[in-house]
């Protein structure tokens, strides 16, 4: 179900908005979940653009906004890994 949802979202993204060249995100645990989920609706450039100044609580709020307000089709079980990656790689130093 989860895969189907994401695949549907990605397919929609590809047909309606060209997938532009994406910035290379830093390697680290959770990067796959970030790339699979966050890039469906917007360029991954939003992540480095908002760095390095957000705390774990602020990254959590951003991810929750994407899920709860914008209804991004992100699997609930991926959320902790996404937040951990954003905090570790692009969080406040």
């Amino acid at each position: 179900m989860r895969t189907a949802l994401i695949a549907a979202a990605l397919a929609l993204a590809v047909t309606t908005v060209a997938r532009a060249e994406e910035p290379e995100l830093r390697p680290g645990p959770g990067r796959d979940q970030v790339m699979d989920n966050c890039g469906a609706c917007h360029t991954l450039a939003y992540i480095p653009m908002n760095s390095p100044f957000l705390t774990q609580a602020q990254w959590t709020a951003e991810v929750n906004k994407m899920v709860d307000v914008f209804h991004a089709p992100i699997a609930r079980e991926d959320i902790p890994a996404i937040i951990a990656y954003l905090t570790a790689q692009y969080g406040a130093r």
Partner: protein
Amino acid sequence: MRRRDLLAGATMLAASRPAFAQFDPRLPEGTRQIARMGAPPGKKDLIELTDRPPNYETPLDAFRTAITPNDRFFVRYHLSVIPDMDELRDWRLEIGGDGAERSLTLTLDDLRRDFAPVTIAAVCQCSGNRRGLFQPHVPGVEWGIGAMGNARWTGVRLRDVLVRAGVKPGALEVAFNGADSAVVEETPDFLKSIPLARAMHPDTLLAWEMNGEALPHYNGFPLRVVVPGWTATYWMKHVNRIALRTTPEDNFWMKAAYRVPRGLFPTDMPFASQVTTGNEPITQIMVNSLVTNLQDGARVPAAGFDIEGIAWDGGHGIRTVEVSTDRGQTWRPATLGEDLGPYAFRSWTMRLQPGRAGPVQAMVRATSNAGQVQVAQLVPNPAGYHHNVIQTLEVTAS
């Protein structure tokens, strides 16, 4: 040409350019790493922050003239699905809502033929212009100084169109929707409303022309809302639905986004139907100025040099622009340039003669005809709006 081809072309163009610009060192480190020179179709030499959705900033050199050229005018979208020009040629404007006596469907030809044309010069400035300069940084699109532009907008008065539909006595707000949309259907569509009184103001327009030409695709072709004096969030692009409402618009983009702490920023028209105990919608642009011919670190002749720039506010016009070279102890008035109207950029210039080599610091502050002055210290607010801190330019005379 399909949208995919257009966007693919934009990407190749952007990628082929070296990132030669020196981006503002006050921006977040990550922003400076991803920013690059680039432009979507129909534009040139902008600073690309994101390409999906497209968010492109105007660099300083395009503000040397008080009218910003169309192909250098900034681009800002929340959502990624933007109809291409072919799709927009089938565009119609629908007017209705529970506060309207009747529903109308209008074409661009109807608007041109049936209503009196109006042209107004006005600054279109993103609410978050200069967000990237906030300290501490706040999340969002990390704009530098260029999420703004000044153009001559030609169209018709929104008021005239609303009167044609018939405004019921209970009408409270006028809401706008545009033809752009989100990738995921459940994402809140970008909808904005303004108070009825602002919609009926004679300077609030539905514009199809910008600086004498059709609106560029990414500035809202074929028709956008123009709300002179108010921030650009209300200037709906590709506007295709207008609703007279007897109740407040309660979409995410009104209820939760684009809000400032209540009473923190002055406004001539508080958005009464949207005020809560804690906050209120952003409305009017704060008085502001920008040095356009020099950047920090520039070398200037000790014998004398000109400092030039622009100033603007939320519709009262500019009374003075003053410059201080002694850290704010004394101020001297600059010479103001041509007056293009109360909503427009006002150019200004001053000759400085340091008389000796070494560092020169010039502070610039604008005052509006309402007596509003730029602030000495940032007024913090969660979303990073209304940055109008007095600029301090640091150059070296030799």
